[in-house]
């Protein structure tokens, strides 16, 4: 036997029956359904083909260092989760609460610094002029009506980390599945047109399995390599994204926010950036924003905008004096059904966000992801019981057919064209959403021929900053090795963030105090700039601006202009991957990242 430097066996292929990549809500739903089903009497005779004589060998590999280190601000109707777990008791899951009060809030611009279109500035003026009549308070207007498709009023507020941890523990306690944290998967094993398992990043060892369940999220290595190999179905594209960034906050004693409160916000810190605030049990709240790919800023940032968001008077009256418990960020694939890949093939099936299950109209993804996993779980139980192989035909008949016949498909179709309008502009975006949502998807705005892209710096700031101001700002950013957005936002009138050391802290302190970010030593850099020449020609270095952990910087010690990557700060959100305008970033699977279990 070959051994590595630590005397561990190396080079052997592992054999399993089912291997899953990534442990999020989709794979949780899959493993929950599968392990519950395997305990039923009719499954008693089913045994492993990989290790005859034993029950089916089911393994799941999760990149993060613990199954609780996921990130998501979750308010969900939990229809699928409750169907799988009829006696779901939120009190058994830390930070879970029932939704009690849900509002859609229009946030006015209290600073005069946002890039509001004329119609939104007019709306602000009207709100202020009629504040008494409309009930505007603290620069915010709780809209008297919100479309039905946005409501989650019968649902739950979760911490995804805690929900994952709870579900993972329940699955593992059955003894029928193993969930391995800190075990990134480098990619799929593809032989011909069949997926035969995965290759682990740690030592390159192969895990061979009759079925590979791909649920590694929007930027997962396995899903992306499958897309590269098999291509996308005709008409499908993955071109709409967002960075979701959130804080989990210990509320101050005098906060009036009650458990179960849910606010969805629009209008601030920029018109394109939507926000949320949910209140968990125990005087804890989650507040966060989504920075979309269709925002045309060439210096888009999440952290600074998040700090201004929580300081908006409508929120700040309840958050001032609070303390940062946790912080995190992730990429969201917002193409929805338009970004749906091949859902099944010989030896593999795709579930969850990487399968295009997120509903971009209702802003809901966790429950949909769970449902896809549960549907695949039911299909796999049938195939195991009947002894049929995991071929494309069998998986399509069992899994894809279930998915197509479910509410997920119906609602995905309604949502499919709902966001087309945002490619034209903000107002068309809202109109398009309303059209699609209120007509059940029958009416929607057409998609533009070319997607909205970040503008050139001079074009984006035209009328606000001169070319010479922008150039000086760029020189200052390079000299001080700072992201450009900070300097430009200062110049545009955004006030400096006064750190209080509790809730308003530097980005680096957020990594330490909130995200508790770590990187194990034995892995190489997982973000690689493929062709430095392309970086040298890049005007805005959007990877630097959007980086959720300030892990990518144009270093003062590296005057070549090629960004430097610091893996100790990376939260593995993957925003650099889809923000690079020339696809010059290699984003590999690696462990580490966030060590907070509360996101």
């Amino acid at each position, binding site marked *: 036997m070959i051994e*590595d430097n*630590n*005397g*561990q*066996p*190396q080079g*052997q292929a*592992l054999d399993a029956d089912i291997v899953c990549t990534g442990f999020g809500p989709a794979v949780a739903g899959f493993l929950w359904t599968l392990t519950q089903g395997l305990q039923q009497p009719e499954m008693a005779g089913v045994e492993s083909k990989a290790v005859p004589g034993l029950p089916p060998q089911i*393994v799941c*590999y999760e990149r993060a*260092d*613990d*199954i*609780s*280190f996921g990130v998501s601000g979750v308010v969900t109707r939990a229809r699928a989760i409750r169907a799988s777990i009829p006696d779901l008791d939120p009190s058994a899951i*830390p*930070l879970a609460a029932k939704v009690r009060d849900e509002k859609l809030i229009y946030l006015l611009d209290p600073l005069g610094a946002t890039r509001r279109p004329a119609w939104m500035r007019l709306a602000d003026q009207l709100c202020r002029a009629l504040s008494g009549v409309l009930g505007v308070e603290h620069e915010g207007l709780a809209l008297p009506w919100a479309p039905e498709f946005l409501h989650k009023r019968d649902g739950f507020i979760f*911490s995804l980390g*805690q929900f994952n*941890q709870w579900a*993972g*523990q329940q699955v*593992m*306690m059955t*003894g029928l599945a*193993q*969930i*391995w*944290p*800190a*075990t990134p998967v480098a990619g799929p094993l593809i032989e011909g047109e069949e997926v035969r398992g995965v290759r*682990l990043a*740690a*030592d390159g*060892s192969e*895990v061979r399995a009759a079925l590979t369940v791909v649920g590694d999220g929007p930027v997962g290595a396995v899903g992306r390599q499958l897309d590269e190999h098999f291509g996308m179905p005709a008409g499908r594209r993955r071109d709409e994204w967002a960075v979701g960034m959130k804080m989990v906050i210990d509320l101050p004693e005098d906060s009036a926010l009650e458990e179960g409160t849910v606010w969805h916000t629009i209008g601030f810190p920029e018109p394109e950036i939507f926000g949320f605030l949910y209140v968990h049990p*125990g005087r804890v709240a989650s507040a966060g924003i989504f920075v979309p790919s269709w925002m045309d800023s060439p210096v888009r940032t999440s952290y600074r905008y998040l700090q201004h968001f929580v300081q908006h008077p409508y929120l700040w009256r309840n958050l001032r004096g609070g303390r940062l*418990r946790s912080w995190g960020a992730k990429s969201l694939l917002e193409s929805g059904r338009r970004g749906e890949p091949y859902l099944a093939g010989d030896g593999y099936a795709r579930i969850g966000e990487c399968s295009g299950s997120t509903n971009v109209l209702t802003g809901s993804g966790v429950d949909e992801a769970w449902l896809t996993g549960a549907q695949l779980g039911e299909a796999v139980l049938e195939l195991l019981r009947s002894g049929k192989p995991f071929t494309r035909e069998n998986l399509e008949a069992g899994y894809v057919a279930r998915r197509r016949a479910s509410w997920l498909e119906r609602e995905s179709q309604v949502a499919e064209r709902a966001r087309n309008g945002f490619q034209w502009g903000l107002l068309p975006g809202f109109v398009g959403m309303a059209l699609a949502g209120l007509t059940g998807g029958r009416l929607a705005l057409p998609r533009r021929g070319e997607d909205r892209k970040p503008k050139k710096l001079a074009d984006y700031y035209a009328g606000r900053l001169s070319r010479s101001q922008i150039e000086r700002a760029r020189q200052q950013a390079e000299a001080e090795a700072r992201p450009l957005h900070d300097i430009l936002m200062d110049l545009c009138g955004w006030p400096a963030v006064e*750190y209080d*050391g509790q809730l308003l802290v*530097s980005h680096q*302190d957020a990594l330490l*105090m909130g995200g*508790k970010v*770590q990187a*194990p030593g*034995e892995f190489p850099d997982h973000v690689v700039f493929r062709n430095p020449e392309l970086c040298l020609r890049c005007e805005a270095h959007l990877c630097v601006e959007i980086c959720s952990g300030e892990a990518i910087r144009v270093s003062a010690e590296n005057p070549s202009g090629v960004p430097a990557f610091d893996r100790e700060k990376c939260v593995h959100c993957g925003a650099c991957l889809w923000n690079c305008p020339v696809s010059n970033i290699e984003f590999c699977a690696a*462990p580490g990242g966030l*060590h*907070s*279990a*509360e996101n």
Partner: protein
Amino acid sequence: MPYQIIVCGGLAPDPLQTLEPVFDPAKPSLKNELMLPAVFDPWAAHALYEAGHLAKQHPGTVVRVVSLAPKAKLQQVMMTVAQKMPFELVALDGPGGGFTDAAAVSAALAEAISAMADLDRSRLLLFGGWESATRGAGVVMQRVAERLGITEQFLAVDELSVDADGSLVIKERIEGGRHQISRCAAPPAMLAWATGNLPEPPNHPQTGMANMRVIMPALQKAKPVALEPAIEYLRTALPAAVRQTRVVKDVPAADIAREIAEWIRQ
């Protein structure tokens, strides 16, 4: 000579988490203890890595981990620890953390070890952490050893080697930043480890899979253990942590380093 190495180790909150004690005289706890991510107690982990190192040098050596912790959490943590090196698990399903009584914990551990059918005291090395990251009572290993009748006990161990005649050469930390080197003729012996000299082994998925074939059944049949409350807590508090942050601009790194050094000197 192949050894039987038994490593006692519990769980501790992930060291990066913010801990807040919740005071209750009968049952103090940590705020949101259930939701804190856990790790294998770092002191016991050092002992485990040393056990694995010794086992590689002495073929036939068996390493067993005896762990008292809430079963679900233990299972979760084992998915990481099991990737480090080969071992077997004896799981005790009971309370963990820093508010348990050291005497009761040691009694439960000793009972579980005594119950091992193939226990060979002539080859037995009892390993554990010198103290624990949860509280650091620093007495559990001695108490376990006393209950097992092991009189050769070594505390704050940093190094173990085996001489040609089979005697154990043990380096212990003593006061004044010095080491004391002892020679123990033969097992049984108890070694409560300080940090040792070994780095944390990288995760090895194949080892983990192999380990799980024995760890999963062990977890399934984990014996429930109820620890009788024997301590009355008068107060609980975290050690005071001083955090002084100052935002500076246009200050050279050398000046910042000088200021930090001066601050440490003070």
